[in-house]
C-alpha cells in the first residue's frame, strides 16, 4: 500500500465532508428551489464519492503499479523548496513595507543565487537591471501601481 495515495484520498474525503457541511449550512433548498448551498453540497458529495472510489481502486490494484512513496518524495530538495516558498511569502509582505524596488532587488538576488551560484557581481547586475527595467516600463511607462513602501518607490 502506498501511504502517499492513502493520505491523498483521506485528505480529499475530509475536505469533501467539510464542503458538504458548509453547503448544508448555506442552505441546500430543494430541487424545486435550489439555494446557495445546492451546488457546493452536490460538488462536495461528488468529490467525496470519487475519492472513496479512488481509495477502493487503490486498495484493489492501482497502488501496486504506482511509484513507491520513497520514489515520489526522495528526489525533492526540501530545503531549497521550502526556502523558495518562504522567501516568496516574505517578499509578498515585505514589498509593501520596503517598496517594490528594494524588495524585488533582494528577491532576485536570492533567486538568482539559489538557482545557480554565480559570482556576486553578475547576480547584483542582473537583479538591478531586471528590477530597473521592470520599474521603468510598468511604473513610469504604463503608470502601474507597484507597491511603494515607506521609501515611496
Amino acid at each position, binding site marked *: 500500500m502506498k501511504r*502517499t*495515495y492513502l493520505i*491523498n484520498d483521506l485528505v*480529499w474525503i475530509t475536505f*469533501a465532508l467539510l*464542503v458538504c457541511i*458548509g453547503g448544508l449550512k*448555506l*442552505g441546500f433548498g*430543494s*430541487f*424545486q*428551489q*435550489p439555494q*446557495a*448551498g*445546492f*451546488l*457546493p453540497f452536490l*460538488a*462536495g458529495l*461528488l*468529490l467525496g464519492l*470519487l*475519492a472513496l*472510489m*479512488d481509495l477502493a481502486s487503490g486498495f484493489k490494484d*492501482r497502488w501496486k503499479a504506482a511509484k513507491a512513496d520513497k520514489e*515520489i518524495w526522495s*528526489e*525533492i*530538495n526540501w530545503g*531549497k*523548496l521550502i526556502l*523558495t*516558498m518562504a522567501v*516568496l*511569502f516574505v*517578499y*509578498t*509582505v515585505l*514589498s*509593501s513595507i520596503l517598496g517594490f524596488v528594494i524588495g*524585488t532587488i533582494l*528577491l*532576485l538576488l536570492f*533567486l*538568482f543565487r539559489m*538557482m*545557480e551560484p*554565480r559570482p556576486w557581481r553578475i547576480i547584483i547586475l*542582473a537583479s538591478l537591471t*531586471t528590477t530597473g527595467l*521592470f520599474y521603468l516600463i*510598468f511604473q513610469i511607462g*504604463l503608470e*502601474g*501601481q*507597484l*507597491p511603494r513602501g515607506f521609501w515611496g518607490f
Partner: protein
Amino acid sequence: MELINLLMTGFSVVLQPVNLLYCFVGVLIGTMVGVLPGLGPVAAMSLLLPATFHTTPVASIIMLSGIYYGAQYGGSTTSILVNIPGEVASIMTCLDGYQMARQGRAGPALGIAAFGSFIAGTLGVIGLMLIAPPLAEFGLKFGPPDNFSLMVLGLIILTFLTSSSMTRALMMAAFGLILGTIGLDNISNMPRFTFDIPELLDGVGLIPVAMGLFGISEVLLNIEMKIKGEVFTSKVTGLLPTLKDWGQSIWAIFRGTVIGFFLGLIPGGGAMLASFVSYAIEKRVSKHPEAFGKGAIEGVAAPEAANNAGAQASFIPLLTLGIPSNVVMAMLLGALMIHGVTPGPLLLVQHQEIFWGVVASMYLGNILLLLLNLPLIGIWVKLLKVPYSVLFPLIIFFCLTGAYSINNSSIDVVIMLIFGIVGYLMRKISLEPAPLVLAFVLGPMLENALRLSLIKSRGSFAIFFTRPISATCLIVAIALMVVPLLPWLRRPGAVLEKEDTT
C-alpha cells in the same frame, strides 16, 4: 459575399497599428513559450492577462490567441532540435523530428513543421470562418438545460482524455466546481466560503489560480528536476523542403488538418489530442509504417498540421456557444469576461469586431509565424541555450508582479502562491490541473444553468433528457464514463501512450 465583407471588417480591425502590434507580440511570445520547455501557453497567457487590462477587448484576445497558436509553431523547434517537447502538443513531433535532426535533416524537419503548421493554420481559420456563424445561429436554440449538459460533456471528455485515472481527473473537476462557488452567490447574493475576507467576495480569481497551478508549480518542479537536453545543432541550414519531401508530406498535412480541425471542435479536444491521433492514423495509412520513429517526414508533418488546425478549431465552441473546450479556451473566456464581453451565440451580432478581428488576426498571425519560425530560427536556437537558472527567477518574478497587478492586492499573490504549492503537490501525485481549471471557469455558468433548469422544471431532472441537444450530450457523457469500466475497450489516452512508447 457577406462573409467576405465581414472578413474585410476583421482586417480593418486587425490592421489598426495597436492591434497589429498585439498580434505580433502574441505570436512572438507564443513562439517563445513554445520553444522553451516547461513553460506552456496557459502559463504565458495567465502571466500576460493583467497586461491586457488597459487595452481593448479585441486587442487583448488577439494577443492571447496569438500566444496559443504561436506556441504550436514554437513547440516543434524544441522537439526537433532537443528531443524535448516545447509544449505538450509537440510530443509526437519528437519521435521523427529529432531522428531527422540526427540524420542531418534538421532544416527540412523544421521547414515542413512550419509550412505544415501554416497550411493547417490557414485552412483551420477558413473552417472557423465558415462553421462559426451557422453554429452560433444554432447556439441560439440552446436553453439552460442544453448549456448545462454541454458543459458536463466538455468536462467529461477532458477527464476522459487525461492520461491519469479518470476518477482522479473527475475529482479535480469537482474540486474546481467547489472553488468556483467561492464568493457571492449569483442568485441570492449570499457570501459562500469567504471566511469574512472581503477580497474573496468576488470569488477567487482565475489568474492567480492558473498562474499558481501552471507557472509557480512548474518552476518548483523544475527546481528539483534538471532539464537535460542539448541542442543538437546550433546552425540549421536547408530549411526549404525538397520536392520529394513535399511529395511525402503534402497528404499527411491535409489529413492532419482535417483530423485536427474536427478533433479541435470537440469539447475537451484541442491541439494535443489532434497531434496524437493524427500521428497514429498517419502511421496506419503509411505504406512504410516501419520508418515512423526513425525520421519519417510525414511523422513531423501530420502532427504539426493537426495541432495547428486543432488549435484554431477549438476557438469555435468558445466564440459561438460560449463554452470553452479546453483549459486555454477557459483562459480566453476569463479574459473576455474581464473585459465585459460574454462569448456565445450573440457575440457575432453584438461584437462583430471582436469575432472577425480575431479571425483576421489569425490569417495575419500565421504569416507572421512563418516568418518568425523560418528566417529567424537562429534566434530560437540561441534562446534554447538560455540557462534555466536565469529563466526561472524571471518567471517567478513575472508571476508575482502579474498577480499583484490584477487588483493591486497582496491577497492575489498569496492565493497564487498557495495554488503554486497545491499544483506542485498535485503533479507529484499525478493529479492533473487542467480539469480543475476548466471546471473552475465553467462552475458559475454550470451552476446557473443547473439551478435555472431545475426551477423551470419544478425539480424534475427529466428536463435534461427530454430536450434533444441536452439528451445527446448527456448520453455521450454517460457512455464515456462507462467506457473505462469495460475491459475490452481502451481509453484513447491509453492507446496513445502505447503508441508513444512503441
